[in-house]
């Protein structure tokens, strides 16, 4: 359980909140690059950390992320005309560039200096990999760009999707470091999902449903090791890295691509789940990429033209009791992504953590909450830069390995949990 005041501290990310300020120390995903595919693409409404913004790309292809509302009388710039190196409000024609600078106020005299004093709040928007990242904090403290491996391997080796999740970011993120649910909730996927099935590790997973855990600090966050019995004298370890505040990776299975998530607050009751899949050393096969597009693995099948999952709260996640009975799925909901999302959303928009009964197996979650709280308070009270801001902290990987029982996963897996270009993932 968690005290109510701490629950509020961790779940509120709007401007001026301690957790909001913490998120504003980092580059975070704002959109997929595919949402602004070309020069003068239609602008896109973006809400992050409880701030409403508009993303657009000007006639030179530059990216901008600005206050959604016009400085004149507050109309949404989403209706604007994106042309001639700027975005022009559809109401009275005020025009802004990608930095939010007003460049034209038609009602003023030509060459008037009035518009120089009009500037919308704007944040940098930068493409790294298939994601457009933004940094919403103090420009003087802007860190180096993200170095997560999924965003740096060649384009043919990586795929990223996103989906709207109707709950607070923290309960979504907590699912990402909660290794003990896999054998239950996702048991169907281990057998059937094209991006999961067939790995030797899955057998260990299914045979031993009572994993043991080790939780250790890393420079940027945590490593959570889940250990199951393997052959006599050895353990099967699944190692999940967390890089603060909201990046997690799933341990790999066989030679399947490696996957993970970025959990980004939209507001306090909604978040974006970015799901990526990449292979460190080879292109994704056509079949793999198609499976990802079709919503297998950690991805979701979304309503065409949107990032809302086709199975969602409004249709009971397409619950299939027959499939549940047959054992095709454990919960009756299809797909790993929606199995997670359905249960996390079922907790309510912001789960009441004063009512939990945690067990020692939840220690990864307990420790992560504590690290977030400490980092938010150290930032607020002493201005301490939190873990995970330094791009060097991003170069981690998940791993799945079989080790002799006496060995510590941390000592044996230093290389396995480090992202080294050109080196394959450690996977069973």
């Amino acid at each position, binding site marked *: *359980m*968690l005290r109510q005041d701490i629950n509020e501290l961790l779940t509120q990310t709007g401007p001026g909140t301690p957790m909001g300020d913490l998120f504003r120390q980092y580059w975070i995903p704002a959109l997929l690059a595919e949402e602004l595919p070309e020069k003068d693409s239609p602008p896109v409404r973006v809400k992050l950390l409880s701030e409403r913004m508009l993303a657009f790309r000007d006639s030179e292809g530059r990216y901008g992320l600005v206050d959604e509302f016009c400085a004149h009388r507050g109309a949404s710039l989403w209706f604007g005309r994106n042309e001639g190196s700027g975005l022009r409000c559809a109401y009275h024609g005020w025009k802004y560039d990608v930095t939010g600078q007003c460049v034209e106020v038609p009602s003023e005299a030509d060459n008037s200096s009035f518009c120089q004093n009009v500037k919308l709040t704007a944040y940098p928007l930068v493409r790294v990999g298939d994601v457009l990242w933004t940094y919403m904090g103090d420009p003087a403290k802007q860190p180096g760009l993200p170095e997560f491996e999924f965003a740096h391997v060649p384009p043919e080796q990586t795929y990223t999707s996103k989906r709207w999740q*109707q*709950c607070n970011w923290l309960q979504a993120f907590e699912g990402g470091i909660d290794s003990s649910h896999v054998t239950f909730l996702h048991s169907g996927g281990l057998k059937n999902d094209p991006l999961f099935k067939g790995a030797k590790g899955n057998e260990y997973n299914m045979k031993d449903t009572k994993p*043991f*855990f*080790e*939780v*250790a*600090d890393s420079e940027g966050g945590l490593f959570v090791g889940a250990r199951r019995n393997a052959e006599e004298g050895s353990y099967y370890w699944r190692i999940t890295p967390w890089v603060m505040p909201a990046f997690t990776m799933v341990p790999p299975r066989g030679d399947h691509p490696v996957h993970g998530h970025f959990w980004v607050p939209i507001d306090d*009751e909604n978040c974006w789940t970015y799901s990526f899949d990449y292979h460190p050393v080879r292109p994704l096969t056509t079949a793999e990429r198609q499976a990802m597009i079709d919503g297998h693995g950690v991805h979701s099948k979304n309503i065409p033209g949107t990032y809302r999952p086709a199975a969602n*709260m*409004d*249709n*009971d*996640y397409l619950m299939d009791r027959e499939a549940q009975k047959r054992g095709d799925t454990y919960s009756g909901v299809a797909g790993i992504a929606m199995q997670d999302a*359905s249960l996390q*959303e*079922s*907790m*309510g*928009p*912001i789960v*009441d953590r004063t*009512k*939990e*009964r*945690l*067990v*020692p*197996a*939840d*220690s990864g979650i*307990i*420790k992560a*909450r*504590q690290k977030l709280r*400490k980092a938010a308070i150290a930032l607020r009270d002493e201005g301490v830069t939190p873990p995970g801001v330094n791009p060097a902290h991003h170069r981690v990987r998940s791993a799945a390995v079989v080790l002799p*029982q*006496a060995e*510590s996963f*941390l000592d044996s897996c230093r290389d396995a949990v480090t992202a080294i270009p050109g080196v394959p993932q450690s996977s069973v």
Partner: protein
Amino acid sequence: MYASESARAASASEARYRITVPIAPARAARVIALDARAAAVTRRVAGGPWANARFYTCEVTRGAGGSNEPAGEVPLYGLDGSPAALGDVLNGTDVVVVLATDDSGRAYAAAIGRACSASAITTAGVVLGDGFEAEDAVAALRPHARVLLLSADESDVFELLTALRV
């Protein structure tokens, strides 16, 4: 009418209809410090607002009158210095949190872990420090501890106990 039960049930307004009953402390926890530094941490943590937790060390509390050696392979003492037998300490508990900061308690770690496993008591180990000074203690705990928290942060003990509602 709502389109689905999920949309209805998970709304913020429905949350206030959840049944609220006070949650009794779920666990009768025992916290056992394996070495001197761990004992110091345990004494600090023991002052917290715990319902059922009891605290022990594997060495005599300074100044207290614990002159008798406790029976068995683990020399356990309550924080007041009174000796205790491991079997009695484990009796009626369902979670044991073992604290270590170095290797001096490795033999105790193994014995406590074995005893907990034999009695189906969930064991959690918190290893404070950079971990390297307590490698053997970690190795001794590993087969038995459902979770090992390798931590640089003494407040993890407090957080763990709070989260477990002991």
